[in-house]
């Protein structure tokens, strides 16, 4: 029998948690308060998930509610549609972004439109969780950031937490939401930081951008793992007397454009930072909205600092792919020239 570390379980209280622990706490909290919450996925049971996001939950809630599925992603996308239509709140896990594509059929054709196509008779309150993004030296097909694909689908909510506390509050909100939510977890952040998380069942709003740093000179918009580089860039800029306001989009769909516009009205400059490839990335949507609704407040071009339009490189080059604080700072320097 393999050695297993068993983590202590507390039902409530405050503690410093990693993001993956915060996900586990939110799942446990949701299962505790609502017995229709069912977890499904590959290796989520005894193994506790490949990232241990469901660690200990099978022992606590039983194999009926923490279900290891066969290795079948279309099923993991489609089975929750049936469960949800019958009044359950399934939370399905896909192990890596690269394995999520068979699920798209179910999400696009069914989960996202069941409520509409039955005029509200049936609905689909499911959550699809998946880790995304690079930076942990994973094998091929494990490191992509394909959030824009989901953000393009009408009928969904697309949520990406950037920190343990956000992961906890947003995941609870996603599970309680009456419509399907794609919940993409920045796996680079899973264990990178700890943060105080109050495990008392408080959800965060699913329609709000969060201002994580106040500033008057330039607005930096980002989400998920890229908040780290973005905040580092803001810190570097502060050393030179440049105050960058940093926004964590958190919920890409529906997008809280008002908070972004409010910030840009103040700063007149905006840089959008994302790990996903540049072309057709979600930054394009924000830039287009700024051009439409924020143009009169812009003093400089909107720039995007994003992944290159390349296939996500294997691990030896992935550091060259990911936007760095230096690239963000360079972009800020360019837009600051419009004094």
């Amino acid at each position: 029998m393999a050695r297993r570390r068993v983590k202590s379980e507390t039902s409530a209280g405050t503690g410093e948690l990693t993001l993956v622990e915060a996900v586990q706490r939110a799942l446990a909290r949701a299962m505790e308060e609502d017995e229709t919450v069912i977890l499904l996925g590959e290796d989520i049971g005894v193994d506790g998930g490949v990232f241990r996001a469901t660690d200990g939950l099978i022992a606590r809630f039983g194999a009926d509610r923490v279900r290891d599925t066969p290795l079948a992603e279309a099923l993991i996308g489609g089975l929750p549609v049936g469960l949800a239509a019958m009044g359950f709140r399934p939370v399905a896990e896909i192990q890596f972004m690269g394995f999520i594509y068979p699920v798209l059929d179910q999400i696009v054709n069914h989960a996202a439109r069941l409520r509409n196509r039955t005029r509200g008779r049936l609905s689909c309150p499911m959550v699809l969780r998946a880790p995304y993004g690079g930076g942990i030296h994973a094998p091929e097909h494990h490191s992509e950031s394909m959030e824009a694909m989901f953000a393009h689908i009408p009928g969904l909510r697309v949520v990406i937490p950037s920190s343990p506390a956000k992961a906890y509050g947003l995941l609870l909100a996603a599970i309680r939401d009456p419509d399907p939510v794609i919940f993409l977890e920045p796996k680079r952040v899973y264990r990178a930081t700890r943060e105080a998380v109050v495990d008392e069942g408080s959800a965060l709003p699913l329609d709000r951008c969060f201002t994580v740093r106040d500033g008057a000179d330039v607005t930096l918009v980002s989400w998920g793992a890229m908040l780290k580089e973005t905040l580092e860039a803001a810190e570097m800029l502060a050393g030179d007397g440049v105050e960058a306001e940093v926004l964590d989009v958190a919920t890409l769909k529906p997008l809280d454009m008002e908070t972004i516009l409010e910030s840009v009205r103040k700063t007149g400059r905006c840089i959008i930072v994302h790990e996903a490839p540049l072309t057709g990335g979600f930054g394009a949507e924000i830039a287009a909205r700024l051009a439409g609704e924020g143009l009169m407040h812009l003093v400089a071009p909107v720039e995007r600092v994003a992944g290159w339009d390349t296939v996500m490189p294997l691990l030896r080059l992935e550091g060259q792919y990911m936007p760095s604080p230096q690239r963000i700072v360079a972009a800020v320097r360019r837009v600051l020239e419009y004094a």
Partner: protein
Amino acid sequence: MAEVFKLPDLGEGLQEAEIVAWHVGVGDHVVTDQPLVSVETDKAVVEVPAPHSGRIAALHGEPGDVLAVGAPLVEFAAGAAADKGAIVGKVAAAEEKAPKPDKAPARDKAKAAPAVRRLAAQLGVDLAAVTATGPGGTVTKADVERAAGEVAVAEPLRGVRRAMFHNMTRAGRDIVPATVTDEADIESWPDKTDVTIRLIRAIAAACKASPALNAWFDADTLTRRVHERIELGIAVETEDGLFAPVMHDIGNRDADDLRRGIEAMKKDIAARAIPPEQLVGQTITLSNFGMFGGRFADLVVVPPQVAILGAGRAEMRIVAVDGAPAAHKLLPLSLSFDHRVVTGVEAARFLNAVIEDLEKAE
């Protein structure tokens, strides 16, 4: 009046169909769903049935003719049941309700961002006449302001001054302020008494006497936290603006310790290097504004706090001592509080306790 049955779209987006064979003739009486004609579309040969019963008045087209979708196919004699109308294939377009734009205005050749153009328009500056200093010859806001001859270039509020803006705006919006004033007789104080230290100790004593003023109030949840620990904000004015670094746990520190804390704080302020953790968490605030002038003031309570004590400039005043006039040094005190959560009695009790402590011998 004859009623016309038009060729429907028989597939998905088909435009026309060729008549293959008629199955009825003029004058025939047909019944609903009876085959009228076979037509060949790009995709299939299909039979078109009668949409309703009636007598055929006319057939349009011969075998081999190609009819466009929507063209008349069969006319029924008068008296036939009215066609319910084709409901599929005709997509009602959403109405375009936008007003027609005027002719596009002529554009000047200057390169300037929309926000800069707006500023130029506001200031009556001709962009073409502005010396452009921005990247690639773009006109910047500063260029426009210079051209407008403005002495002062508008600049964003920064740092402490911006924080002051936010805090004061919030306070002004949220708080229901009330102020009670009085004076402490400090004639008995020896020379060089540190006023700030005495005030800090007096506040600690007053918080024990009237704990409701050392509290946070959350208007969103209508909850109040009365604190045991006193985290005293000390309002400091600098050129950059107003802020209030925290003296931690003043109820449990002796005078020397407090003095050391104040010295450290002064150094930090001078160096603009106050640690961030010392800028948050105030449970009540002291403003020693008398150092700069003024005796009494309505002070601004910064949420979530509910009270702020201000000390004005101490002056010699004539007071009655045992029924006889005497000149004593008096310290004017103003206590502003959030009347939504603090009662007048609680405030008065607090102020009395401050005075009682200040008037004690050292």
